């Protein structure tokens, strides 16, 4: 059995897109000094609202929009707690995870009268886009073509975020807030507005991550379907130093290792060990990326405050 084939990479790209989207969202929060461990909840909210939107409108576009909207609603709640009421972001983030899990499960029951999972075979998911021209290139075509629009969105969003943060004025100010909030305040920058802005944007990104999960990868919602992706996104964010391009790298590394670990299941090694692979490789990667993410995150010493 060969370990590396196109489908490995294609599958990695697919699997990684919600993680990348959420990591970008987390990075935006980190860039304004808020460490967001509520990504898991935000993605789940997005996944659920996307399905709701899809069910009622029958349109995938509206579904994606409602997914993003769901993410935004929850992120606003998170923002309210952390920015307005200065709640500890980690506690608030964990609470968000609990809260959304409860809300979506309840929503399943209240809206769809089902428990556990909502699946409707008439529901259409996101289309698969074949990229003209690229599609026909032998290897690359297999890899890059035929993904859902949100997969492309994830990578484009990373690049846009890069441009936004490092080339525009508002991005510049966001960076400033994260680097030195006190100084930003003393300059008269409206730190609060920038923070809310970043949090809302992160809600959008996580909402899209959820939509990709519930409409792109599969077309259904199941209770707790994020299955820890929010935390992986958090790791990808930190490993990528909250830098959009870095995060493409770190989430791809993780995705590839994850896809590889699945293929290793075939060999006579306990699955527990193959499943460790992505985590172990990520730890090893950290030996080479020592100072990553240090500056940009508010989490470092805040615990002792």
């Amino acid at each position: 059995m060969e370990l590396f084939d196109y489908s490995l990479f294609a599958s990695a790209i697919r699997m990684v897109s919600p993680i990348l989207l959420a990591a970008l969202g987390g990075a935006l929060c980190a860039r304004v000094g808020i460490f967001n461990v509520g990504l898991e909840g935000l993605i789940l909210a997005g996944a659920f609202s996307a399905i709701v939107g899809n069910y009622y409108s029958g349109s995938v576009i509206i579904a994606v929009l409602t997914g993003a909207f769901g993410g935004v609603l929850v992120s606003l709640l998170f923002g309210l707690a952390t920015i307005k009421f200065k709640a500890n972001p980690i506690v608030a983030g964990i609470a968000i995870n609990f809260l959304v899990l409860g809300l979506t499960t309840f929503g399943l029951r209240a809206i769809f009268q089902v428990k556990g999972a909502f699946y409707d075979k008439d529901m259409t998911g996101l289309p698969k886009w074949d990229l003209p021209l690229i599609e026909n290139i032998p290897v690359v075509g297999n890899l890059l073509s035929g993904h859902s629009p949100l997969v492309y969105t994830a990578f484009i969003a990373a690049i846009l975020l890069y441009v936004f943060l490092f080339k525009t004025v508002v991005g510049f100010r966001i960076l400033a807030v994260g680097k030195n909030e006190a100084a930003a305040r003393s300059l008269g920058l409206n730190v609060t507005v920038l923070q809310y802005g970043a949090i809302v944007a992160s809600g959008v990104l996580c909402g899209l991550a959820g939509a990709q999960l519930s409409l792109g990868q599969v077309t259904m919602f199941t209770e707790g379907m994020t299955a820890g992706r929010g935390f992986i996104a958090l790791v990808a964010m930190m490993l990528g130093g909250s830098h959009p391009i870095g995060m493409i790298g770190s989430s791809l590394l993780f995705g590839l290792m994850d896809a590889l670990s699945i293929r290793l299941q075939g060999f006579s090694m306990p699955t527990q060990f193959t499943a460790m692979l992505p985590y172990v490789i990520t730890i090893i990667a950290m030996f080479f990326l020592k100072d990553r993410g240090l500056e940009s995150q508010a989490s470092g010493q805040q615990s002792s405050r």
Partner: protein
Amino acid sequence: EESENNSSTTNEDSKKIALVLPEKMGVNPFFQQMDEGAKQAAEEFGVELKTIESTDHSAIEENLRVAVAEGYDLIITSSFESEDALKKVAAENPDRQFAIIDTLVDLPNVQSVNFREHEAAYLLGAAAGLSTKTDKVGMVVAMDIPLMKKWTVAFEQGLKETNPEAEFLVNYVGSFSDPAKAKELALLQASKGADFVAGASAVGDLGVFEAAKEQGFFTSGQDIDRTEVDPEHVVLSQLKGTDAAAFETVKAFANGSFEPGVVEYGLKEKGVGLTYVTHESKTPLHSFVGQEAIDQVKSLYDEIIAGNKVIENPLSE
């Protein structure tokens, strides 16, 4: 208050039954059915039923104890996870009746309802072996835990007995509730040439079904007849009558015929089965499997219920 209640049995007209589930039923059709079956019987036979879901492992014992304290006459629980807790609680309350579905607890006041899923898994494997055109068959399994061997080992046995050439691919999702990953695994197996991929990944099966639809291979579901979901691709379903088990238990208790001991549900008792072989299905048989294969599986089934063939429980070595 509680300790007083402990000894006194309530003398109200209707009997009170508690169904203590070891998990939140949400992600698991297995528990959903059980709940439905019990509810239906409760309604039919005029007993009061309360379903209590446990949020986690340590809540099971707690919930059992509270159910005792609150004076339920029969406390039904389920599955291996509750084993330890039930052993403790039942032993401490010898005057109370208990039942446990899907595992064995050997106590004088406990009825154990046991399923022989492996028999059904064997049949499913056999059907797969007879149907596959590529001689490659896959299975997407929730987690690599001992319990799942009841599915994987017996399935492989059935597969190999009917089709020695067939290759068996197995992949583990690592979660009971990750359809996205289950789908990727199914796609992977399909890309390796499997034309039949059995789903055994709880909620993940929905992901397997989607993969089948997308790539045009065939698949099967678990517990209830899932062929309705997508008759074109979900061509078989391995059945498990937890609803019947719960129904029967409640019914027996309501009628006064409830007895401690072991109640077995295997192929013979029609507690487990396979669509088209042991149970009818609303959807017509798909040509991928074909009547010929079904007939062959049926003869295997006959051998088993006749006792000529014994499928070992992979867990009891």
